[in-house]
């Protein structure tokens, strides 16, 4: 729903990486794997 969408948009970038929570190698690999058509 729009509110959930808005909440996630505040918390995560469009690749699913959190703006606030620190990342690690495993999570970063997951984020990278979601990126399609890298230009």
């Amino acid at each position, binding site marked *: 729903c729009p509110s959930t969408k808005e909440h996630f948009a505040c918390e995560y970038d469009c690749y699913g*990486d*959190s703006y*606030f929570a*620190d*990342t690690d*190698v495993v999570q*970063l690999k997951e984020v990278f794997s979601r990126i399609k058509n890298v230009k």
Partner: protein
Amino acid sequence: MERNVSRIHIVSEPSIIYFLQVSWEKDLGSGFDIILTDGQSAWSGTVTTSEISREADDMAMERDKYVDELKKALVLGTEPANVYKFDFSKENCNFSYSRNLKNVSFILGSLILQKVSSPAEVIRELMSYCLNCMADQLAKNEHLQRENEMLQRDWNDVQKRLEKCVTDKENLEADLHKRFVLVLNEKKAKIRSLHKSLIQAKKSEKEKQDER
């Protein structure tokens, strides 16, 4: 000129080894020379291209197929021992070569050889040829051996470099990920800090508004 020396057995003298040298220019089918020796005497002869054609006709065989049979009988020596037979008569110097097929012999060809007046010279020449072949082959083999050793060393070298490349690739990937994580987490710390400041600023404003 091409040449081949082989060991043969004569049907009428099975206990004696004879040596047969066949030599030809370019192609056996154009005609060939024969030298036969028992290590003491030597006989020589020639089979011309027209004689080959005639023999092929007599046998009602295609010329090319007949020449292939001649190669197998006189040169290649790859067939089992009883496929081709040779006979030679010291009395009339008739030399013949036959093919065995289902226990029936078909004479492939025959010729009258001439006894060589100086067999020692012929035998020396044959042995010289054999020693030359041995030396050539030995040199070729030594060259191939060295080449093989070099190829093996090169392969080992490239294989090591491949293993290093694979390891480097894995290390690069791990290293980049670690660096990326450090940089991103710095940015996230900044975001958290700014977010906290923004919330604080908004809270402070609201408090002041409430005071008023």
